[in-house]
Structures are given as C-alpha cells and as structure tokens.
C-alpha cells in the first residue's frame, strides 16, 4: 500500500550513479533505524549482558518485558492513552469538520473575523495556556474524580484550529450544486453536513484523525502536569516516570520504551498511506 513513486526530476542515466544513489539512501535509512534496533536488542538482554557492549544478546530473554508488565500498570496506561486519544480524535473530527464546513459553505456576518480569530489561536504557545488551564482545573476540583480527571487531560485538545483550517480548505472544493440538490430533496442543514458533505471529504478526515490521534497519544507536557493519580497516567507519562526510577536498569527502560513504540508502529504500518498523504495535503494547503 504505497503511493506511486514521485519522479521529479529525471532518473539518473548511468548504472553507477544509480548504485551510489541506492547505497547512500539505504545507509541513511539504516542509520535512521539503528536506534530502534538498539532499543529492541537491549530490551532482550539479561542485566548481566547490558554493559558488555555487544550488539546482539547472547542469551535473549523476555524477562525485562515480564518485569515491566508485572511491576507497572502498563495495560492501564495503554488503555488510558487509547481512551484519551480516541475521544479527543472523535471530538476533533466532528467539531473541526462542522466549523470548517460552516466557514466554507455559508455566508454570514462575522465569518471572516471568526476564521481569523480561530487561526490566530495557532500562534499561542501551549506554555502560555497551561498555567491558566491548571488553575482552572484545580479551582473546579476536576481532578478529584476519575471522570473529571480524564476530562482534565482531554479538554485542551477537543478541537484544533489547525483541523478547522484543513477542513475548511477541503469543503471549499465541494460543488455547491450537490448541497443545493440535497436542500431541494428536503434534507435539514445538519443532515446535509452529516450525510452529504462529510462522506465527500473522507480522505481529509482520515488524515486529520490519524494526526490528532498520534498527537494526543504521544502528548506529554499537559498530562505530566494534570495527572496526579498513577492509575490515570497515559503511556508516555507512565514510561517516563518508570524509566526515571529504573536507574541503570536499561533493559527494563528499553523494554518499556519498546512497549510504547510498538502500538504506534502497528498504526503506522496500517495507515502509512493516509499519514504520508496527510502531510502532503497540509504542506500544500498550508
């Protein structure tokens, strides 16, 4: 499942340049992948072998993994991350599409201003927002209950200005006739959005979904600040705090890191095409 190769400018003529080209590209790729290999190989080494500088483990063991899984609430952290990232993504998809659609397909006073204000929020650094968010969460005593705590982790990401921008660009390319036809058929405005417009921008929605999901799954700064209960930690937070306490037990740290990386690698393997097309779309539209 790969997109067709991009052939610009012309391919090299001589076989020697072609071999050099592939050599360079594969060496670069090997260097890029080396940290992954090192992580996985270390995670399979028993403690005694950690410091003998060999590349491959002599007596590979899964002990590090069973220790990480036994000592930590790994599964719980993983599910927390899935829950937080999943709900956030659903919210972003729905609301960003709704706002993008409205800004693209309706004429109303204040439209330009609303669009500019939403775009301007992209410039606000997260650091500036987290102190007021934290004060608000504490004052509303949100972290005292589990649902409140989950909400606290999620609320900053429930909509994204970037997604609004992206969806607006896509809805603008939809022909108005289609929407008019649906209106004549007697569909309500919300049904037109949901049943006619949304299905037509599915590729853009897929890209937005994957990026939002990955971004929230990997998020670190805000969860670090707002999550107090160790059961509610998201995966990156759990891995960081576990690794911070593990000292020099690098086998354990690498096993924990591998466990954080593997789900993302699976997502990437499945959705590679949408992810890469998503960047192409945003880069072009941006």
């Amino acid at each position, binding site marked *: 499942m790969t997109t067709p190769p991009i052939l610009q400018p012309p391919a090299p003529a001589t076989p020697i340049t072609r071999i050099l080209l592939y050599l360079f590209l594969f060496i670069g790729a090997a260097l890029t*992948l*080396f*940290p*992954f290999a090192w992580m996985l190989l270390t995670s399979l080494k028993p403690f005694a072998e950690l410091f003998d500088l060999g590349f491959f483990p002599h007596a590979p063991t899964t002990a590090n993994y069973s220790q990480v899984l036994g000592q930590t609430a790994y599964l719980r952290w993983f599910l927390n991350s899935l829950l937080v990232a999943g709900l956030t993504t659903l919210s972003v998809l729905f609301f960003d599409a709704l706002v993008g659609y*409205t800004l693209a397909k*309706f004429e109303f006073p204040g439209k330009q201003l609303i669009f500019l204000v939403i775009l301007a929020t992209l410039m606000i650094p997260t650091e500036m927002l987290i102190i007021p968010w934290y004060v608000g969460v504490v004052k509303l005593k949100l972290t005292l209950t589990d649902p409140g705590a989950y909400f606290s982790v999620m609320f900053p990401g429930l909509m994204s200005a970037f997604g609004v921008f992206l969806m607006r660009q896509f809805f603008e390319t939809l022909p108005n006739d289609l929407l008019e036809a649906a209106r004549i058929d007697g569909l309500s405005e919300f049904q037109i959005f949901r049943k006619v417009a949304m299905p037509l921008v599915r590729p853009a929605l897929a890209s937005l979904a994957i990026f939002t999901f990955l971004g929230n799954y990997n998020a*670190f*700064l805000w969860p670090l600040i707002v999550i107090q209960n160790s059961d509610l930690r998201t995966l990156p937070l759990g891995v960081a705090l576990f690794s911070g306490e593990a000292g020099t037990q690098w086998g354990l740290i690498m096993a924990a890191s591998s466990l954080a990386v593997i789900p993302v690698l699976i997502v990437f393997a499945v959705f590679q095409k949408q992810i890469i097309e998503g960047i192409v779309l945003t880069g072009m539209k941006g």
Partner: protein
Amino acid sequence: MTATSAAQSRRPRLNIRQRQTLTAYTFLAVPLLFFLIVRLLPTLVAFRLSLFRYSILRPEQPFLGFANYLRLAQDETFHRALVNTGLYTLITVPVQIALGLLIALLLSRVRRFQGLLRALYFLPYVTPVVAAAWVWQWLFSPQFGPVNTFLVWLHIPPQNFLNSPAQALPVTAALVVWQNLGFQIVLFLAGLAGIPRSLYEAAELDGASAWQLFWGVTWPLLNPTVVFSVVTGTIASLQLFTQIVNLNFTDQGGPLGSTLSVAVYIYQLAFGRYEMGYASAMTVALFVIILLITLFQLRFLTRRFEY
C-alpha cells in the same frame, strides 16, 4: 431592472441569508465557546497573572505591576534559557531542512523502493518522543553507549555527550532532527512533485548544469515548502520541552543548565516552585517572541515568482 422588481427579488434572498446566518451560528455555537474559553480566555488570564505574584498555594496574590517583567530582564537563568532556545532553533531548523531536501532530491530520482525508503525515514516522526529520548540517552551513554563504542573503534576518545555541558545541547538537537527528518522528506518530495517537468526540460535545452537547475528552478519553486518548513519548525523548536526533560530526567535542563529551554524553565517555575505569576510573564515573553519571529519570517522569506 426597475426599483420594484429589484426589491422583490431581494426579499427572498435576504431570507435565505438570514436563514444561513442562523444555521451558521447554531453550528458554530459550541466551537466558538470552546475557542473562547479554552484558548482566548486563558491567554488573557496569562497576561493578567503576569502582573501578580501569583501562586496557587498561597491565599493572597499581591499585585506587582510590571515587576515580573523587570525581573525577567535581570534573570540570568532566563537569559541562558533564551540563548539555548535560540541555539536549538538555529541548529535544528536549517539542518533538518537541508538534510530533508537532500534526501528528498535523491529519493525523487529512484524508482524502486521509493515508498519503502520514505516509510523507513518517516518512522522516527511517529515514535513517541518519550521513548525516543530514553533510547537516545542509552545510545549516547558515555560508558556503555554504541556511539562511543563506534568512536573508540575509529580511535577517537569516548565523549561525555549528555553529561557534558558543551555537548548536551547538540546531542539533544540531534534527537530533534532525527525525529523531524522524515516529515521534512515527505514534505519536500511533495513540493518537488509539484514543479512542472517542462521547466527542467526548457532549462536543459538552454544548457544549464545540474547545479544551475537546482538554484534556478528547484530552489525558487520550492519556496512555499521551505517557508512552511521554516515557520512550523521554528515555532516547534521555540517550544522544545519533552526531549529535554526526558534526556536528563534527574537534572532537567542540565548539566549546569546547558540544555535548559524557555519552555522547561517555565515548567520548573510554575510547577516546581509554584511561581505562576513570574512564569506567566515568561510565557507572555515567549508568545511575543514567537509572534515577531513568525511575522518576520513570513515577511522576508516569502517570494513571489512568475513562470
């Protein structure tokens, strides 16, 4: 058209407009509230907090006026963090763009394995930063890391890397570049694909060398991609946090403050020492810096070409 017929045809149109306005604001009501409460209001609150000696732990919050900003001007740790943040940006943005463009140019010339290679280069970008940072720590471990093993093999003395105040920042920047490179490659591949092939053919007919083709055709036509890369890369690197914190978990921003960024310092002040008023003043400063740099870049990097 007479006045009456114009008025007649305008009336139903006005109705449609009113209906559209009503629908639009119904659809926008919840999102508008969200952007007001979760984005704009906190921005204003941050401005306000920056004028107080604010801590969530104390009951009284004395008003300070601009004292927090004066303190910023004299805070040597803040200056250190500013310089480091500037260094992160000056290292990571040009390096990731140059390497990304180079690899994209080479990739655009190969037919087989292009998709596979692109996917391999892209993997670090989707990897959780936390995991990547811990692996990086182990790779660059002074005693047991493979990087030093390799250096010794080359008869170069082993380095201290993350334990050395001189080397910790470049090693951190290298992690950022490693993670962002794949994103740049994909972006530039798309940019290259957008350049009309006829331009190269025309230039080749005129006898242009490969070097001239690059600077005369490729580089100017890639301008929108480069501007996008520079602007988004700069905004991200000015807020660098997770990599730094996880590369030196026990002495965040260390050794000796050599990797401390503005974002990490803000975090330490606000949530380690609970000096939230002062930290807010710092976030306002960061906001202004990001705004000015972005506007400056958009103004001076964007070129319009006619072809």
